[in-house]
């Protein structure tokens, strides 16, 4: 645990520790936030917020059992706060992802754009509804275990498994359609 939080060196002061966790988690948390928010600028703002919170909580960090779980959880919670906030809803309602989010059908853009299968899968994952996108990205992208996810999301492990299954089904359907339509040509 202490190696996670980067505080194994007792002489490490607050600033040095911050540098260390920024190095260690900065990119991961930004991408984690992007998986929720789907906007790089907002994701950066959220991560900035997270690190400021960390900096303030420096003294209490030693009491936290798993630093990784903790920092993931505050990041995810901040993302969800932003998603719920009225500003986000107003600004993002017409963003590119909205139509995808709702319809399981392939949109014309998805058809026309020449993309690799990898790119198509990534886009499809991001287009999933939040509760499926969340479990898929945490499980496959962040490579967390079901147990860790349960701790971070405060959701029952079986619920997570069910959601994963349903998300896989949705993705499979999308992938099959895409292949039938002559992907990448």
């Amino acid at each position, binding site marked *: 645990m202490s190696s996670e939080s980067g505080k194994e060196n007792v002489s490490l002061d607050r600033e040095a520790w*911050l*540098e260390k966790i*920024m190095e260690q988690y*900065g*990119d991961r*948390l*930004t*991408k984690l936030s*992007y998986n929720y928010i789907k906007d*790089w600028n907002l*994701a*950066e703002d959220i*991560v*900035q917020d997270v*690190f*400021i919170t960390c*900096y*303030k909580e420096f003294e209490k960090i030693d009491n936290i059992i798993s630093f990784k779980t903790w920092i993931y959880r505050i990041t995810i919670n901040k993302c969800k706060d932003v998603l719920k906030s009225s500003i986000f809803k107003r600004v993002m309602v017409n963003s590119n992802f909205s139509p995808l989010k709702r319809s399981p059908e392939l949109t014309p853009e998805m058809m026309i754009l020449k*993309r*690799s*299968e*990898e*790119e198509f*899968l*990534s*886009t499809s*994952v*991001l287009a999933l509804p939040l509760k499926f996108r969340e479990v*898929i*990205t945490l499980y*496959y*992208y962040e*490579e967390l275990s079901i147990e860790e996810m349960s701790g971070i999301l405060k959701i029952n492990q079986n619920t997570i498994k069910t959601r994963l299954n349903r998300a*896989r089904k949705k*993705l*499979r359907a999308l*992938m099959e359609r895409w292949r039938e339509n002559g992907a990448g040509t």
Partner: protein
Amino acid sequence: MERELNNLRKSMNASTHKGMRFTERQKVKIRAAIQLEQTNIKRKHPLLIYFITSLAASLFILLFYTDIIATLTNKDIKQGSKQSIESEWEIRNHYVRNGKVKFSVFEDPYLSAGKPFGYMISFKEPFEKYEGKELEIYAVHKETGKRLSVLPSTKITEPSSGYSSLERFTTKLLIPEAGLWKYEVYFDNKLYGDVVLAVQEAKFFPSNIPPFVQKTDFEHIDWNRKAVKIDNNIIGNTNKSGVIGADMPSLNINQKWMWHLWGIENPKETKLTVIGYHRETETIHQILTTGWSIGLGGKNNGADAHTPSSVNIPLPGEWAVMLYVDGNVFDVLVYEINN
């Protein structure tokens, strides 16, 4: 599917999540934000002062709001442009300006429309302020907006007797209609202040009056048939009715009155009902402290029936005490009670 998903990290990092998303620029931004936050914490102290100042200011305004209004409108009076002080219609007996009570009005507790009622106005400023000035009172009716001169111009020449100033200015005013009335007090044609009082509907009988009491009973009172002294300190009408104690001080204190009636055959099964009628205000009063009626006892002091009672007379002046026995008018006792 599982194979593709297992490669999701690789796929995303190659497409949607390409490249390093956490740059040196971002780190600089975070460091700057933390710096800013630190200075904000240090700045908390002066901010706190501003907060306390504004809090104190708002409290001040809250507490002295009415005075501020009064002061502002007072300015209007001086300019003579607008002669209204407060537009509110909340009942109040006092007029307050600059945090000081300028005068208070104490109205007759039976204040109602259609009859003159007494008011005691207690002016609080030194006598020099009022001396030689013309006092006028106007009344404004809330409902109709009617404005009447209720007290014609009266010159103030001397202070209330026993007081250094006008602490006990008494007057009688007639208000024609029931409702809320604003009494505007003027000195030398300048609005001095106002109070708002509720004037009751002109009601002859209190609601709990015994049903056999008729208004016509009070229309033909012979005010010249005054009660006379009979034997045994009884004051009343010979061989009809009389009271021991009616000449004792009874005004606003409970006094023992002993009632005596002649010509009652079965006193122990008879009830006496006593209705007080005040001539000046033409108002009905319950003068027995225990109720309108009282049971009678046997012979005493030469009368056929008698009963002791506790009596309280609310107003000075001429009174007609209407006596009813078994629901019929028995006699009228006319007294002049001044103490």
